[in-house]
């Protein structure tokens, strides 16, 4: 049997496999064939784990035949952003520095996927060390947006987004520091979730900015995102920042609608950057929320205008510290040189790309003597003020609404020579990251070029149930439940 993954959700696959009505192996075969036939056009994958995936899927079928339950993601093919450790597999973070490095253990999120019966199909491309908003900063390949090959898929989880949007897999795991799950979800017409700070373990996620990094799912449907989040969330003693609150069943009540929900629109949010179709789509999204029974009101968060500035001080300060470990001494590509210091300098200089170097320099500068107070401490105060104001706003409303991105996916090369323009791609995703609040991106419409646009909803801490319920109601209202994924030409990719 051959499954058409452009129509099957993760939930449908898991339900079918658990009942014995669907073969996990057949699903995996279809995915593998599809990737082999089409990934050349969008370049989502750094490595396809075909044989391993087929073998694992076969074992899942055997377990089902024996009356066992492999778990809530039984047989679901999943792609992993290549900054998530998967034991025994290469882990590059999109960097020449780590080419050939093999992860000695698996990330907690990956372990939980596997324990739930998921089938890891492969590693996906990303901006180097998750630093970027377009996946153009990968040292290991180009990823294109399946909607338009001349456009970026977003970043830094661009490979993961492209894999899901193209119909290769129904679920991918990415990481989100300032928007790196939500923005590629927006650019690729997907659902992307960044949970509350500490909701998902960061153990095994290569650190970029430890106070901001979050592992999150990219899917074609809100229900699949809820299922994935339920699987990966929860306390982990190996991550000291994990919250201990129990994980609810995010599918419970997800269809209940949003009648009476109060949705806040931040007065100071810079939505004047929206143009043309993006502006119209934003207004229509707010009207749609109203039609669904929500009450849309204005709230004030003055410090939101400082969010991007504060983020790039704090995130890069943390990154400069986190990336100090990549010195070519214990792991990574070591350059030959006369002594220890020269080896470290040469290895880092040869191994890191321009964006990583830029961020390390910026992060080191803002922490350095004489500048720390003016930059780092000021940014800390700004982030604290923003967090306080967003929390206060969420005491008067149930959710906040923003566009996810200033527009549809931009053209490849359009912003690579202008770092600041690239950073401003995340103008709407950064505030909830700084505040540690959960946020979901859900498709809302298309721009003037026919590219996906997206609504972002932000909730209070541990407010994922309300957030996902609202996203589901919005998704249902738009009718955007299946991505028109890139399809192979007739006769290609069949796994019958």
């Amino acid at each position: 049997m051959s499954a058409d993954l452009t129509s099957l959700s993760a939930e449908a696959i898991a339900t079918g496999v658990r009942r014995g009505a669907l073969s996990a192996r057949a699903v995996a075969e279809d995915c593998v064939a599809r990737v082999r036939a089409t990934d050349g056009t969008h370049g989502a994958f750094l490595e396809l784990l075909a044989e391993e995936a087929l073998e694992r899927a076969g074992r899942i079928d055997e377990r089902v035949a024996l009356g066992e339950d492999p778990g809530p993601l039984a047989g679901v093919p999943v792609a992993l952003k290549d900054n998530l450790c998967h034991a025994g597999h290469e882990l590059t973070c999109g960097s020449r520095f780590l080419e050939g490095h093999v992860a000695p253990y698996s990330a907690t999120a990956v372990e939980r996927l596997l324990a739930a019966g998921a089938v890891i199909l492969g590693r996906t491309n990303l901006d180097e060390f998750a630093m970027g908003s377009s996946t153009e900063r990968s040292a290991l390949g180009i990823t294109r947006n399946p909607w338009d090959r001349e456009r970026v898929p977003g970043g830094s989880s661009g490979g993961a987004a492209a894999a899901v949007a193209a119909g290769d897999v129904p679920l991918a795991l990415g990481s989100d520091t300032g928007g790196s799950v939500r923005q590629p979800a927006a650019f690729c017409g997907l659902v992307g979730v960044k949970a509350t700070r500490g909701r998902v373990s960061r153990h095994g996620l290569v650190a970029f900015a430890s106070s901001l990094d979050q592992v999150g799912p990219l899917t074609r449907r809100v229900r699949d995102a809820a299922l994935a989040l339920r699987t990966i969330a929860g306390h982990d003693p190996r991550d000291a920042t994990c919250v201990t609150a129990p994980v609810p069943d995010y599918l419970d009540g997800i269809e209940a609608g949003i009648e009476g929900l109060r949705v806040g629109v931040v007065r100071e949010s810079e939505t004047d950057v929206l143009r043309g179709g993006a502006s119209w789509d934003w207004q229509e999204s707010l009207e749609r929320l109203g039609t669904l029974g929500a009450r849309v009101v204005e709230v004030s968060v003055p410090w939101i205008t400082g969010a991007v500035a504060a983020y790039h001080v704090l995130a890069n300060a943390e990154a400069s510290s986190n990336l100090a470990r990549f010195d070519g001494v214990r792991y990574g590509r070591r350059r030959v040189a006369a002594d220890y210091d020269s080896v470290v300098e040469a290895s880092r200089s040869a191994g890191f790309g321009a964006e990583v170097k830029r961020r390390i320099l910026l992060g080191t500068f803002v922490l350095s003597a004489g500048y720390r107070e003016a930059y780092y401490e000021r940014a800390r105060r700004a982030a604290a003020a923003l967090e306080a104001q967003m929390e206060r706003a969420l005491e008067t409303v149930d959710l906040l609404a923003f566009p996810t991105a200033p527009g549809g996916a931009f053209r490849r090369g359009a912003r690579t020579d202008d770092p600041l323009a690239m950073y401003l791609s995340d103008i709407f995703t950064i505030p909830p990251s700084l505040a540690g609040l959960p946020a979901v991106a859900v498709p809302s419409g298309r721009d003037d070029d026919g590219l996906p646009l997206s609504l972002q909803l932000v909730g209070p801490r541990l407010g994922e149930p309300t957030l996902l319920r609202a996203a589901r109601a919005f998704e249902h209202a738009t009718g955007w439940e299946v991505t028109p994924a890139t399809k192979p030409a007739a006769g290609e990719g069949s796994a019958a």
Partner: protein
Amino acid sequence: MARLCRLRLTAAEEECLAGELADILAYIDRLTLLETGGEAETPRPPAPREAPSGRAVAPPPALPRRRFLDNAPQHEEGFLVVPEVRVER
């Protein structure tokens, strides 16, 4: 600054990065416009975390030496070979 970052930049990289970083820092300076001079607002502290009751959390097993050395650029007889550290006297 590059030395502090343990990076060695070419002249071209220095020139390019200097301009870019100046632009970024100029943008970051907008934070000064937002400060009111009053007492900084602070968020509520996160809810107290409860340790799982009745269970001591055992430390996870250490990474086996052999697995660690699999990724080492150079190793010998079970030890990591480290470049010589030169100390000026």
